[in-house]
């Protein structure tokens, strides 16, 4: 398959000017989004990697878009920091740019928010090969049109991200996970609803249907025990406590539970929608962040069911047409016209 692999920003600009249809690719961990379609040239951004600036005290770093998440997280960890939005598929080689383009966040988003909440700035190459900057490299900024936020979830529709700036936070010193089995989906949803309204500052609050809740706490080692006990009292059960929980959550965010499924999808959920979703023919799955989002493994029938029900989804792996529904015209098309008038990029 024809492709280009730029190693400098200027080469990205050249590639964009040269090829009428392009499909950016980072680590290739979400093949439904990064596999070139008929007539498209693969734009492999894995050569555009590396951290450009990182000031731990500022809680900010800037890196090339093709930088693997793992590389970033190692650098942050050395200074006691982390990416609070917990990008999925890090262990499989996902990059910063791919994470932003797909708009993905992992289980720990429950504590401080998702990728949209931590992205501070972008430099991207628009559809005419121009290098455009949006946002900045400081944690607070309201100057100019926020092009960085436009990149989140856009699948590369408006431009090729080359450089990204993020806010980061101090890593919790210690973590602990409580796993409880509720007798039914209804009971689990009731518990979720209660927990969501309490100021518990949970790192993660996952539902593995029908009735399993996995709750992660983070903070000072001295406070974790009593916070855990409070949680157990709230739920009225002891559950199972994971003292060493890092490996478990790493596997979750790498979506290991989807391994056997032909199609991997992200489905926006929410407490009110879960009973309906649970009536559909979906495979292995897990609801993150108090039920806000579902990562599900499915087959063609499951995908068809989502579509029939009019439920939005994003396929990461295993489908030709990954996004449903398409973005809202006309607003989207006007923006597309402004930044990618020749429709070189996805979602043309």
């Amino acid at each position, binding site marked *: 398959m024809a492709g280009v692999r730029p190693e400098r920003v200027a080469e990205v600009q050249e590639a964009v000017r040269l090829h009428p249809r392009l499909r950016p690719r980072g680590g290739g961990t979400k093949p439904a989004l990064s596999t070139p379609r008929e007539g498209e040239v693969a734009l492999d951004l894995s050569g555009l990697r590396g951290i450009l600036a990182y*000031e*731990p*005290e*500022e*809680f900010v770093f800037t890196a090339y878009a093709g930088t693997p998440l793992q590389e970033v997280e190692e650098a942050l960890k050395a200074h006691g920091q982390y990416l609070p939005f917990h990008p999925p598929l890090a262990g499989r080689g996902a990059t910063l740019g791919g994470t932003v383009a797909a708009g993905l*966040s992992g289980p720990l988003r429950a504590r*401080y*928010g*998702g990728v*949209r909440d931590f992205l501070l700035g972008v430099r991207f190459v628009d559809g005419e090969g121009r*290098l*455009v*900057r*949006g946002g900045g*490299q*400081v*944690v*607070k*900024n*309201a*100057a*100019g*049109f*926020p*092009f960085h*936020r*436009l990149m*989140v*979830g*856009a*699948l590369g*529709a408006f431009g090729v991200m080359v450089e990204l700036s993020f806010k980061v936070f*101090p890593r919790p*010193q210690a973590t602990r996970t409580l796993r409880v089995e509720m007798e039914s989906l209804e009971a689990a949803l009731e518990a979720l*609803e209660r927990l*969501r309204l*309490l*100021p518990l*500052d949970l790192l993660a609050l996952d539902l593995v249907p029908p009735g399993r809740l996995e709750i992660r706490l983070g*903070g000072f080692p001295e406070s974790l025990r*009593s916070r855990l006990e409070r949680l157990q009292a709230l739920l009225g059960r002891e559950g199972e406590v994971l003292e060493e929980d890092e490996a478990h959550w790493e596997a979750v965010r790498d979506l290991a539970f989807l391994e056997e499924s032909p199609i991997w999808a992200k489905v*926006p959920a*929410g*407490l*009110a929608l879960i009973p309906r979703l649970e009536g559909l023919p979906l495979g292995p799955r897990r609801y993150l962040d108090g039920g806000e*989002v579902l990562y599900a493994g499915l087959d063609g029938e499951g995908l068809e069911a989502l579509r029939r029900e009019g439920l*939005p989804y*994003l396929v990461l792996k295993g489908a030709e047409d990954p*996004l*449903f*529904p*398409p*973005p*809202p015209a*006309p*607003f*989207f098309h*006007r923006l597309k016209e*402004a*930044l990618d008038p020749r429709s070189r990029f996805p979602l043309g």
Partner: protein
Amino acid sequence: MGFLEELRALFPPGRLLTKEAELAPYESDALTAYRKRPLAVVLPQRKEEVVEAVRLCHRHGVPFVARGSGTSLSGGSLPVEGGLVIALNRMNRILRLDPKARIAVVEPGVVNLEVSRAAAPYGLYYAPDPSSQPISTIGGNVAFNSGGAHCLKYGMTANHVLGLEVVTPEGEVVRLGGEGLEGVGPDLHGFFVGTEGLLGVALEVTLRLLPKPEAYHTLLAAYGSLEAAGETVSRILRQGLLPGAIEIMDRLAIEAAEAAVKAGYPRAEALLIVELEGPREEVAEEARVLEALIRESGAQEVRVARDEAERQAIWKGRKAAFSAVGRLSPDYIVQDGVVPRSRLAEALREIGRLSQAYGLRVANVFHAGDGNLHPLVLYDGKKPGELERAEALAGEILRLCIQLGGSLTGEHGIGVEKKAYMPEMFAKEDLEAMERVKRALDPKGLANRGKVLPEVAHGRG
């Protein structure tokens, strides 16, 4: 039919203002140095009326400015001469508050603080807290991506808006985003927030609500210099603490706050306020770390709030600081540039130097946790040339923020006030991309004309 006749057909007399005396209150916002006379003001009560007004403007090519309470400090809601003002204060209903989903769906004229009030019975609140929150509206907060004292930890307005219904400058009604924390497809609602009304008017806003923190630990420390207070902030963050708010006030601001609300602050060159928040066990541990650190920071005096009343007392002076500074001087300009936190001390030294060089007093109150400065440049508009000197000084401060790697604005927006400085922060290509987006959504250039984008997009280097 002419434009005004058509407006009359849409709005009853009490909700269409055209007389000079009626228009006067709408001629400016909180940036009072600027005034413009609109042709008319309409006061819609339903979103359909907003849509009709925008469509009418589009048909007749009349520029329009949507506004809420007019608290913009950057002139963001300054009318266009001869244009229409769409005043949204009467669209002030909270349409739905769903504790289970932790969201509130509101009209744009809802006052920020009202959202938290309505959410309080469920133990929830709306996090963004600009100082204007008892007055400013959600529509304005959305347009300007308002901030507040808690942005390091909780982000800005954009991070709390989940969905929007918007009327575009051409009169089309679109829904962006949804009701949940996660969506699929481009984050168009995130993009709309902060575009200062240039891409349309928000008709309905879906906000995320958060559980109100269980416990607070609020501490006030007095220092012999601004640098010492700033250095303490760095040490707090290097230690791995993540306070909800970190604020600094300088001597002039402290004196003003004392005079205005008798906050009972210690007399010092600088005051630092740090507030931890979270589950009580966690806050207790953090407080231990913080107090050890403050003990070694050279603070002249330290006070810790023992209850909610003492906590409110600590915040009282800080919250009153802006209006208090107003008492020190007939007029003032407030800037809100951002610098990387590690450059705070440098920025403050330079501001002090500029203040002397220009012969104008500058009071500093700022969000130290996120590097967001709020220098208040004091001047007397009645003295010839003083406004111009104050503006020049404020401009130097903005340039300084850019040079130090920061931003022109942390939360007030560009408006009319700072658009001339945009080319110093953004390159030509960046500004042209903004212009192309503006033209694509608003080919006639009607929505909040004259804001954000500089007249000529020459740009930086």
